[in-house]
């Protein structure tokens, strides 16, 4: 049994139909990435532009007001790092 599969073939719905709406959220797509964003809190001004530009909508404000990426979904595209007006985000090898 491959750990690369979500479930056994017998458990798939007929014709691979989806019967629970929104279950794509359960799929880890963050493991596609090579690089992940890391924020330098000294430079970050908490403007939130990175979350606006994130095509995965996986960056949101935390309790401290910073904007970390949810690595379960982040594909490491680097748009946040590119758009950051303070160059506070760097892309590092995952």
């Amino acid at each position, binding site marked *: 049994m*491959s750990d*690369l*599969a*979500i*479930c*056994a*073939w*017998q458990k*798939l*719905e*007929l*014709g*691979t*139909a*989806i*019967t629970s*709406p929104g279950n794509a959220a359960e*799929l880890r797509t963050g493991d596609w990435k090579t690089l992940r964003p890391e924020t330098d809190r000294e430079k970050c001004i908490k403007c939130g532009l990175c979350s606006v530009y994130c095509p995965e909508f996986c960056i949101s404000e935390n309790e401290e007001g910073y904007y970390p990426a949810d690595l379960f979904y982040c594909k490491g595209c680097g748009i946040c790092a590119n758009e950051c007006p303070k160059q506070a985000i760097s892309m590092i090898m995952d």
Partner: protein
Amino acid sequence: MTKAIGLEVSLAIAEAVKQANVDIVAAYPITPQTHIVEELSVYVANGELDAEYVPVESEHTAMSACVGSSAAGARTYTATAAQGLALMHEILYIASGMRLPIVMTVANRALSAPISIWNDHGDIMSERDIGWVQIFAENGQEAYDLTIAAFKIAEDHRVLLPVCVNVDGFILTHMIEPVLFIDQKKIDAFLPPFKPAMTLNPDKPVTMGPVGVPEVYMESRKQCEEAIMGSRQVVAEVFSQWGQSFGRDYKLIETNGQPRAKVLFVTMGSQGETTMTAVQDLSESGESVGQVRIRLWRPFPREEFLEAIAGAEELIVIDRALSPGVYNGPVAQEIKALLYEQPQKPKIHNVIAGLGGRDVTVKDFKKMYEMSRKNELDPNYTIWGVRSDA
């Protein structure tokens, strides 16, 4: 009805589809299939068949409409041939991948170029891997019977796959043959209304045909593979049920001629009947010859085939399609691959015959037999009857 009625086979197929009480026919006319869907459109227009007839603008759309209607829970039918089947190509995989029990007649016809409207199996052989159950009819009666049986096979919840019934273009479709039609009541008893396993229902939301990420795709393919492998048993059951209900027993593989003959012809489709005459004549003159007819092409009935050829020394495998560049036609490739694992292997001659409507007569089969006896047939493959200056 116990009396055979002489009718063009296309119209007999249309009658079968009408009697199967389909809900949707979505089709585009193409020779030599046109008479089937034309007749069905007449039935719908006259109110003889309570169905939607969707006159689409292409075969690609025909199969797309079939996918939609079958997914919605409607009993769905279409028919096509050659370029039309090729145009459906990508949607054919979607129908099987989504496990939709669509029934389709393919009036087998050669693919262009050069343009040919005449018969061979090149069209369906290009679609061997679509994941559909594929059946070949040999005569008009079979075309009628198997079309009705196809719905029962497809809709069986152990199968839930599309089924394609192949009939040789013109040779069958345009022939007037005696056909025994079955009373509607008996057909209704044999083929109850379609009970879809999954429908588009707002109370039970479902996404059909979603993306299959790498974490799902292989399991999805495995599910379809299990379904088509398992369908072999269901096809056999439905055929035997047909025999019990209507007296005509069909097998996945048929044999004919002398039992345990040394030389066996292997045929598929209408050519089988011509071969049958040759086999009979040769047997009468003392030759040890027989015939194996493949009725179920997908899934390939390995065990039944091996049993049918057990003890044979030589097979003359007739292919009505060319698989360019591999030295054998598709049927011979299949059989050679199957025999590789067997301890006892007969010698195989592959004869590619009857492409693009070229006649293959009783005389031709007798000549093939004669040549095989004299060891004059190519040990690999022969393209039969090609005129050459060499």
